[in-house]
């Protein structure tokens, strides 16, 4: 476990006033709150900031922390990778609402956590808790449907009262057209209430493994397609992989690197269906023999072309 410098995390002095701390928190929250932020590791950063604020905003916790903190320095920074919770089954609130660091728990105890999470206890007796899990799926499963096996780790209390991790194997029929961030609800597969009552549901949140060809963005798919300079300039029909199989794609004359062609409705078959985008890349043939060099030289002689004209430079 490492020491966390909450003042450093918040970017405030050790003698900062309550108002300054609040101000710093607001600023950082606007920057890193996962609901408003486009920053890369927003979620991890916001968790850190939230934990720091939780301590520094309370006079008692801050005093306790200050006392403990004398002479300590922040340990090496540790951040869980984005998929750290993949394959785990959580009970209660969704996986995103996960707890504070071990450091925080050691200082203030798990009970000190604020949040609505505990508010659900006592809700609806006789009904089992909903469970949540996150899985990484191959794109094919969404494009075509089909079943996939998942191994979920479920925390359970064994007969001796110890917390153990149990593995649960599930074969799940994947609904065609599901996109990242959506959930498959498996009715009755969640927690069982003590005695008789209705079991809760299991919610499986889907994310995709990176695809070798396509970049996945919501329901849209992107393919980078290399073409030759003459295919781009003169137009051509080239064979292109798409989720529905290889198609003959017409490249319009006068295309450039970065030109975008849209195949409407050829993305993920959600409702409405996503689009399939082809981004053209122009690949240059190597000039590694005399014939190729001569061809380039002939082109240079034939075409008065200066790609840097706007810089005021000259061709030679």
């Amino acid at each position, binding site marked *: 476990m490492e020491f966390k410098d909450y003042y450093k995390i918040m970017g405030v002095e050790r003698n900062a006033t309550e108002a300054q701390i609040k101000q710093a928190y607001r600023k950082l929250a606007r920057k890193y709150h996962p609901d408003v932020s486009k920053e890369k590791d927003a979620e991890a950063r916001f968790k850190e900031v939230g934990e720091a604020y939780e301590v520094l905003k309370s006079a008692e916790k801050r005093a306790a922390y200050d006392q403990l903190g004398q002479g300590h320095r922040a340990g090496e920074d540790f951040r869980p990778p984005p998929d750290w919770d993949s394959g785990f089954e959580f009970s209660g609130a969704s996986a995103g609402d996960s707890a504070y660091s071990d450091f925080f728990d050691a200082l203030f105890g798990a009970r000190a956590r604020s949040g609505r999470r505990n508010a659900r206890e006592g809700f609806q007796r006789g009904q089992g808790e909903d469970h949540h899990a996150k899985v990484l799926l191959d794109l094919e499963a969404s494009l075509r449907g089909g079943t996939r096996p998942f191994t979920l780790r479920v925390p359970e209390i064994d007969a001796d009262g110890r917390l153990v991790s149990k593995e649960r*194997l599930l074969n*799940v*029929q994947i*609904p065609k057209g599901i996109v990242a961030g959506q959930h*498959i*609800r498996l009715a009755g597969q969640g927690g069982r209430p003590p005695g008789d009552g209705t079991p809760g549901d299991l919610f499986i949140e889907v994310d995709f493994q990176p695809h070798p060809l396509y970049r996945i963005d919501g329901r849209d798919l992107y393919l980078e397609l290399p073409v030759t300079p003459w295919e781009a300039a003169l137009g051509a029909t080239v064979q292109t992989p798409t989720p529905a199989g290889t198609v003959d794609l017409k490249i319009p004359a006068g295309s450039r690197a970065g030109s*975008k062609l849209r195949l409407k409705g050829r993305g993920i078959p959600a409702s409405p269906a996503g689009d399939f985008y082809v981004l053209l890349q122009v690949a240059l043939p190597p000039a590694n023999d005399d014939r190729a060099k001569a061809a380039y030289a002939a082109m240079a002689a034939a075409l008065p072309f200066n790609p840097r004209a706007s810089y005021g430079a000259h061709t030679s």
Partner: protein
Amino acid sequence: MTSSENHTLSGAIFEESAVLTVKDLSRMCAVDERHIVEFVEEGVLEVITAGTAAVDMAEWHFSGASVRRARRALRLERDFELNLAGVALALSLLEELDQLRRELKARR
């Protein structure tokens, strides 16, 4: 220890198929039913059944996507200490921003 279930489980896409009541939403988001009603009144959440004010609250229905929206609203409310009008404004601006980003990406 491993438990194996050989039969195949199937379920629908929750966001698209679920039809939820105020009670369901309140349970899934761990908030008071009154809070859900306030979200509806402020336009944060939309009722999918013919949503005339005359319809009894017990007959309101919401789509599965409402859960994510309600949770997002609750987090904004809590973490920025916003009031309901502020949450509604933030959500609609964020959605507009998402939309504009998508259009920009499709054009570039």
